[in-house]
């Protein structure tokens, strides 16, 4: 955007009129529904606002409260980071390795396997499947298997138990979130020019690991960045599925993340100002992670 509207290009506007016109619908919508809300929530985070009475300015109180008073916030922050650290990189690595692996098959098998692994992303009924699988009564699949094999005597209410819920939810998210970046990885792998491999072989590459490190990864840098950003950023905003499965608040806030916390503050407590402050914090955290991912991937290519 800097380049289009920047000083340098301004005089070229006439020549680039058609491009500007083409971009306009998107830019307008993007501004209206993405930029504007972000700006509004930054402003709102300095107010106390219950959605009915007029907002009143309270300075940094919301931010102070976040770090000093709110008991759920530290737990939610830790949980969010926990989920982000596990789901993001795990999902990313897994989807790359799987993509690499599947890419070796013949096209027909590859297409079939790709579909199989992409299916979770298509099925919107993530919650439904897993709530049946981990249902707390004796008719839930897992409980039923455990009871039938005699491993347990009573059904376990999986999502109401701190010992199990984090692991189960991480697994569900990795499984469900892999689809998109997995597809991106496969198409990235297919776009690596075969000539490079041939040239590499002539230049002395001996193993597949060498090939991966010196040819495949550097050629896929943009795709990797995309897939990593999708995975890791996505993992910061996990929440709705958790709330549906484990409820909000979960047992001793063990799996509550920032998103459910802020939506709870906004809708159940009617504290929009504070909810805005929390979302600004989350936004900052995600922006920071974006920078970090870029750095790591830069290193990867060298």
């Amino acid at each position, binding site marked *: 955007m800097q380049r289009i509207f920047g000083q340098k290009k301004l005089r070229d506007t006439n020549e680039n009129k058609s491009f500007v016109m083409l971009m306009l619908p998107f830019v307008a919508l993007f501004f209206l529904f993405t930029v504007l809300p972000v700006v509004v929530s930054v402003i709102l985070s300095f107010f106390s606002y219950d959605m*009915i009475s007029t907002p009143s300015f309270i300075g940094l109180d919301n931010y102070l409260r976040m770090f000093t008073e709110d008991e759920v916030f530290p737990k939610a922050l830790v949980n969010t980071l926990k989920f982000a650290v596990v789901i993001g990189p795990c999902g990313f690595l897994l989807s790359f390795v799987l993509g690499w692996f599947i890419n070796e098959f013949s096209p027909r098998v590859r297409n079939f396997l790709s579909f199989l692994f992409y299916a979770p992303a298509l099925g919107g009924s993530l919650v439904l499947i897993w709530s049946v699988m981990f249902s*707390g009564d004796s008719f839930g699949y897992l409980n039923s298997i455990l009871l039938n094999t005699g491993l*347990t005597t009573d*059904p*376990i209410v999986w999502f109401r*138990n701190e010992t199990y819920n984090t692991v189960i939810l991480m697994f569900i998210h990795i499984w469900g979130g892999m689809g998109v970046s997995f597809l991106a990885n496969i198409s990235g792998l297919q776009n690596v020019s075969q000539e490079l491999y041939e040239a590499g072989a002539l230049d002395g590459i001996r193993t597949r690991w060498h090939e991966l490190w010196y040819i495949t990864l550097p050629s896929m840098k943009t795709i990797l960045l995309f897939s990593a950003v999708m995975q890791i950023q996505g993992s910061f905003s996990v929440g709705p599925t958790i709330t549906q499965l484990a409820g909000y*608040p979960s*047992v*001793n806030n063990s799996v509550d993340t920032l998103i459910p916390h802020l939506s709870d503050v906004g809708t159940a407590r009617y504290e929009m100002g504070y909810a805005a402050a929390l979302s600004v914090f989350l936004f900052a955290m995600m922006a920071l992670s974006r920078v970090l991912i870029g750095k790591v991937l830069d290193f990867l290519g060298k």
Partner: protein
Amino acid sequence: MKVKRIFLLALVLALLCSQTGIVLAEGEQPSAVTDGGDAQTSTDAGTDVDTDTDAEVVVSDDNYIAYEKENGTSAQAKEEVLLQGEETTFKAGDSLEYTVEVPADGLYELTLEFVGRVTANTVVSLQIDGVVPFAEAQRLQFPNGYINKEGSVPDARGNESAPEQILDPDVVVRVARDYTGISTKPYRFALTAGTHTIVVKMTQGEILLKKAAFTAPEVAPTYSEVMNGKTPTFTGKPIVLEGEAAVKKNSRALIPLSNGSSTAVNPADPVKSLLNYIGGTNWQSPGSELTWDFDVEESGYYYLGIQYRQGAVIGGVSYRHLKIDGKTPFKEAEELKFTYDNAWNYWKFQDEDENNYWFYLEAGKHTVTLTVNPGPVAQVYADLQNVVAALGDLYVDITMVVGETVDIYRSYNLFEQIPRFQERLLESANELDRLTDVMSSLQGSKSSQAATLENMAETLRQMYNRPYTAHRYKGSFYTNYTTLSATVMALTNMPLDVDRIYFMGGEDVEAEDKTTWYGDLWFSVRRLAATFSADYNKTGSDSDDADTLVLWVNWGRDQAQTLDSLIRNEFIPKYGIDVSVRVTNATLIQGMLSGDGPDMVLQMGRTDPVNYAMRGALINLEKFADFNEWTKQFVDGACVPYQYRDGTYAIPDSQGFYVQYVRTDLFEEMELEIPKTWEDFVHVTTILQRKNLQASLPYSPSIDGGLYTTLLLQNNLDLFKEDLSGTLMTETPQIQVFEKWTTFYTKYKIPTTMDFYNRFRIGSAPLGVASYSLYNQIKVAAPELEGRWAIAPLPGTLQEDGTINNKVAGSGTACGITKLAKANEDNAWTFLKWWTSANTQAQYSSRLESLLGAVGRSMVANKEALPNLGWDIEALKVLEAQREQIIEMPEVPGSYYVSRGIDQGFWNAVEQSANVTDTMLKWGAIVDREIQRKTDEYKNKYFDN
């Protein structure tokens, strides 16, 4: 290979993890040793319940089918035996006794002629010489007559809505018959010549009885007997009856309906919704009846044609019994057959060789009646019911041996433990096979219903063939059983849509209703065009007049339309205040934010009124002069949850509470008594568990309606401090009650989640606590349980003075006025009063029930509305008694945290075996902090509403 090894390693690890987890869980949880000591002592308390006066009446164990078999050979009676010829008011609780002289042995039908007084249908029990001849005779139904109410107004867009169904002011004649579908004919009572004592006792309803008699059964001649060789021809003009114009019905549900998607229906309109047919799934249960009026100008022979559709039951056949002027014209008219087709079709009453059946009609007024008749399906249905009952008994027997969850590695030797185990399996399997064949031949092809029977039979065979491992099939037995019983329920459903009825002379009117492809196309185009202009979210008037009250509802379409039609037909004409109903998903908050919100809100959730009130969004209703007078119609303290500071911001429009559900048949068998206290409840639970059965206690952390609050109330404890500045959750007595509550789930192992309805039905959970709304569901959807279950007041807590405290925490919704209505607040208050009045609530509920079936019955908050909803007298007694015990809990700013605290405490104690006192102290403090914070936040905010 490597991959495989890693995979195996992971699997082993996973198994290890789960196992260690389990060991931990077992170590921490208290074992399931039953506390028999103190439980046993308390069961003796209060053994003799209200003993009924007619306890010595003998009720036959036979059902009607068995009775009919026994007596079916007797001759049919020829003469009528009059029981009552004078007019008398007869209402629930009354008994009429007659001594009559029967002239000759024979089979008689019981006929009543009466005028309905209340919307509840009449149910009576019949004793002949002190004996109820068969089980169904304890509950003989005599449905009221209904007619359309005149003067139904289309809405502002010309859309018609169904007129209200009101009681027929004329005398209706009803013969005692079966309404479930096991028999096609009225009940026939075998009477011997001589003097008999007949007692008719009414258990539900109120009527003005004109006449009661034992009548001679109708004998219809065959068609050939009627015609006697004549070959009729006639060239009179055809007579056309519109289906929706049916004048008399025997159910409130039989309302005119609207179909706007086809040109085949008359009248058809692509834009407006017009009432153009009748029937559908409202007209499917056996015995349900419609009557049309018509004039014949020219005497002569006519034949019958019907423009119909039967698309609701795939592959099913619907049967109807035709009567003209209340009489069956000839035998063939008893079973008109309509086959499945999802399109509108033209049907003619013809014999197998496509010759028309002719009726001779004199010039003048006539009526034509069509009654749902299960036809040949009745026999299948009756037989299947027996199979279902037998399988239910078998399941309970299996459960008593193996328990709720099966250990598949154990040898249970079911064939040794259960009497005639293998014979019973085989008998049921063979019977199911036979019935599958019968059904297939009736329906012409194998329907999905037949497949259900086959699956059940397959499971039974597997169990039969593998006697040593039969217990492994218990799970599939259960799933097949629930599907099978649902199928059986639906078997006698015979829906039929009727657009038009024709009585034709010479010319056939078939062509008149023929549709053309270009006609259909043009119709579809106009329909599509209409979707761009018609606003389906608004049902009321369009006017943006400032005086029009705006009402937002986010209900289903049926509920919203019912409300809208009530408003247009009752409220607006009476008060002259315009109300516009809008169906929206938006919340009140969003409406307030945009400044374009509603003036009134109905059915607000429990926490909403206080939340809105403290932010100044609602109006204090106490300022209206008649507020105190009006709220006397609710249970004492019903407004408590809607009070904030000195005001009341909403009034209740629904109120629910728990009652106890008991399978009396199983209780009798095990010689158990219905629990009166929680100690009894636990005692019964342990006995049930010894037989591998379960009791159900629903888990809910809510303050309103939750069991924890109920237990607090029964121990005379409060949840909130008197000044509402915080909770008392951390006090010792409160924690003790909390602990008592959690022991139900830990020590006594009652499951926290359970599909109570199905488990109650099959019998593996013969005792449970649930909302009283479940009553209607069981009543309607589980007819095989008739007379085998009951509701009872909630178990109570024994007080020091020996009395039992039965208090229960209420739950429910409320309605209020928003600050946007300030200029019109008096009108809005008038509307709220109208909406919460006993009459409106009862009307709304009964209309909804006619649309949605039993689930439509609402849990009215108005005390006077409850008896008018059609409850059984026995159930009503229990409900009214329990309702007297309701205590409503207050709502305070931040009280949403209380249920969270309860939830956390509960799961920590139940699932993680945490120390209850520690958890409650921790969460109680967090809850109090939140309440304090919210109270402080709004301490200085006052609104002049």
